[in-house]
């Protein structure tokens, strides 16, 4: 029932996707997470551009009508950009969670770390979709 999970990126079991793009990694949340959360009302990134994150770190919080949850990063790196459009209009994630609804852009320390994360197929199995 879930829309197809893009295979051009890697996933955490906690539903964040990580997409390599031009030497950077974009991070957002999956369609499965969006369906569980329902309408997104608030996104906060607790770190600033330029700060360092490590794999397993929480980098912010996301809220919907139904729930509040933490956002996790699956890779080490430096924050290059935060999607201000999503902070201003969180419903962008409901509209297009794999595209316009990206949250964080990271300059990875080691892009190979992506390989330790779940493939689309493994993520779908893990998410019960």
């Amino acid at each position, binding site marked *: 029932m879930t829309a197809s999970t893009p295979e051009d990126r890697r996933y955490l079991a906690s539903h964040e996707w990580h997409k390599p793009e031009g030497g950077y990694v974009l991070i957002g949340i999956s369609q499965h997470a969006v*369906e569980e959360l*329902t*309408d997104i*009302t*608030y996104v*906060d990134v*607790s770190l600033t551009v330029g700060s360092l994150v490590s794999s397993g770190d929480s980098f912010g*919080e996301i*809220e919907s*009508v*139904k729930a*509040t949850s933490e956002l996790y990063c699956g890779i080490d790196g430096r924050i290059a950009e935060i999607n201000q459009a999503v902070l201003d209009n969180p*419903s962008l994630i*409901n509209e297009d969670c794999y595209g316009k609804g990206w949250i964080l852009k990271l300059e990875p320390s080691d892009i190979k770390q992506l390989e330790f994360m779940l493939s689309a197929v493994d993520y779908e199995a893990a998410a*019960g979709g």
Partner: protein
Amino acid sequence: MTDAASLRRTPLHGFHQQYGAHLVDVAGWEMPLHYGSILEEHKLVRRGAGLFDVSHMGRVMFTGSGARRFLERVLTRRISTMQPGQCRYALVCNEAGGVLDDVIVYRFEDYWMLVVNAANREKLLAHFEQVKAAENFEVKIDDITFKTAMLACQGPDVMQIIGHFTSEVPALQNYHFCQKNLMVIKFTISRTGYTGEDGVEVIMGAMTAPMAIRLLTSEGGSQAAKIKPAGLGARDTLRLEAAMPLYGHELDEQTNPLEAGLNFAVNLDKGAEPSGETSGGGGGPQIPRFIGQDALEKVAAQGVSKQLIGLQLDGKRTPRQGAAVSRDGRQLGVVTSGCLSPTLGYPIALAYVQPQAANVGDAVQVAVGNSVQDARIVKLPFYKRPRV
């Protein structure tokens, strides 16, 4: 993950699937949380007309010569003054005055009905049977939940739309009901609801429900097509804006109705001698004291130990059930329900706090996520529909 196979389905399950409902476990029932967007469905009910399946709620009939006295015994509110065709909100309490459930009472010509919360239905049935047996009441208690379905049509356009089917319903006063036969379907239609909007709640036989819902939605012609389905997610944000309590949040067995501000639904003068009795058999019917009355009389005399209040928060974050409400680092109470109000645009919450701290306008702080937000105590309800 819940086991979907073990969940009960309402007679409208096929309708939910047809409309792409996101189904979730609500008190053991597979119910629509939304049909796409909770926020859109919330706005639909505030601006037009929304249709909710509330068949999971319990419907229980009371018949027999002792039915009236029995209900007076188990309900906090006087019901002997109700006329056939009237509904009344009431509470069922335990001996300690804690709330077992909040219910709507329907008075028919020769029987009564309660609509109860889905999660409390079995607990209440056991409670009622226990009271009946212990006190020898002449009452027959029939759970008709599975034989019937219940819909709520809510929103400012509902009466105009229903007016195309019947002129009797738009003429109903609030908290009154009628019984109508439309196209071989028998409906009990009450001007009640749980959204803060005008509208009706409709009870019908389970077998006829799928036909009834087609009458009311797209297949029922252009007028009815304005009623679109809405899920229980929107029902929750709608009732919260209207500051209507939800069992498990504002009400539970550790909370009494006076703490919840439901004094209007508690008649502490039950059991008093009917007036005019000295003149020989006159006066009103005998009304027994209700279960929990002793405890609630004490609370009324001594004052409540917590009080339900409304909060308006700064920012855009959603306060959740269990969040601490504090002032200058000292905790005053906890949030019971919260949302980013879709109608008002700011976060609202209901909370229990120490009564001496509960003045409208007072500043407090509320824990949200990993931070704390400034808030102030506001009057309830948060939202009141414009009256024309």
